């Protein structure tokens, strides 16, 4: 159970928080409802929390944080950069607990295991971008995972042996987001320059999984649109727009 008063203690009373004990997906709720800028929808349980491609996010009651934030004012070209920037903010938020780094484009990892996932959703009506929602699932205090993901998933508790107050982490992320969003939106944040500080796999061998095919590359960074830059086996630099980095080279 999220303690709303504890959250307000950290974040102040002005933050719009929608707390739901159980919801299919906080992202779906935030997209479907008319909510103000920076409204944060948080739930104890997501019954259909989606990962990208509809993968269901492992959802343990009360142990983890599942939240979605309404983000207004972005141009559609800023969506993928915002996804990357959200990873930077989350890494900064967790810095004093563990070193969480980004596995392009939307996973946060610690020692090659997934700690958090970022999933942005938007809605378009008649070709016009109407709504942008930033969703984050963060494994905070969970103590174990099902066998099939045990090798590739972790939590703050499993990494540090310490249980954390979810309200404080959420409030801290919201504070970071609010204080830097305007700079990001107006072009004042250079995501390309910052990438080396946050990437889990810079200059490392990676495999890109796309349509069931795995291809080896060496990660070299990102470009301004958020696409991955990587050297293929022949040594030429490629821009990777779609696909995922597999977990097979992460450890």
């Amino acid at each position, binding site marked *: 159970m999220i303690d709303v008063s504890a959250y307000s203690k950290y974040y102040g009373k002005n933050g719009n928080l929608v707390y739901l004990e159980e919801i299919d997906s906080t*992202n*779906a709720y935030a*997209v479907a409802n008319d909510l103000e800028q920076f409204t944060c929808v948080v739930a104890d349980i997501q019954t*259909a929390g*989606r990962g*990208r*491609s*509809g*993968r*269901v996010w492992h959802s343990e009651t009360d142990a983890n944080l599942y939240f979605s934030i309404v983000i*207004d*004012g972005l*141009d*559609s*070209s800023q*969506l*993928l950069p915002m*996804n990357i920037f959200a990873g930077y903010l989350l890494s900064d938020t967790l810095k004093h607990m563990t070193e969480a780094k980004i596995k392009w*484009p*939307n996973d946060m990892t610690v020692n090659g295991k997934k700690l958090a996932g970022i*999933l*942005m*959703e*938007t*809605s*378009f*009506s*008649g*070709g*016009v*971008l*109407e709504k942008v929602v930033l969703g984050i699932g963060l494994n905070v205090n969970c103590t174990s995972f099902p066998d099939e993901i045990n090798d590739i998933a972790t939590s703050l508790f499993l990494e540090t042996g310490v249980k954390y107050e979810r309200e404080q982490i959420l409030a801290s992320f919201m504070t970071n987001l609010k204080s830097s969003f*305007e700079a990001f*939106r*107006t*072009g*004042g944040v250079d995501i390309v320059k910052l990438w080396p500080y946050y990437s889990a796999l810079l200059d490392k061998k990676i495999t890109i999984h796309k349509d069931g095919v795995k291809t080896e590359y060496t990660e070299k960074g990102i470009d301004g*649109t*958020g*696409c991955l830059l990587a050297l293929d086996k022949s040594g030429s630099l490629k821009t990777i*727009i*779609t696909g995922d980095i597999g977990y097979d080279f992460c450890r």
Partner: protein
Amino acid sequence: MNIKEMKDLIKYIEKSDIKEFQYENEQESIYISKMDDVQQVVAQPQYAPMQSAPAHAPAAPAAAPAAEAPAAPKASGNEVVSPIVGTFYAAASPGAAPFVKEGDAVKKGQTLCIVEAMKIMNEIEAEYDCKIVKIVGQNGVPVEFGETIFVVEPL
């Protein structure tokens, strides 16, 4: 205009009673609005690739969203077209029921499908109350910008 000047301008306008502000020269055009129904700030140098509206375009607030995408495609007549390049998904997740079926009557704002582009899940909503005549997009198959994904009949 550099970022700092722009920030100063935004700050100044935020504090003032000005509701809308527009400025244009050879290189850039800036439009800032505090009206609730438009994007809050649109500042776009002319050389930006996403620039779509001609410099002399009327500064109607409704024109502001057009700057965010390469010209919003018109849903001409009874076609719903994809506003972006991406992969068409008929359902929220594999195995889930599709958002809509042929023959369904849908309300304005109801989700028709998801187009996944650059890792972002984009829900495409009905622009008006309509009946789904034909689902043209195929699950998991890429769609182009402006490609027809649904044929609908306005209700």
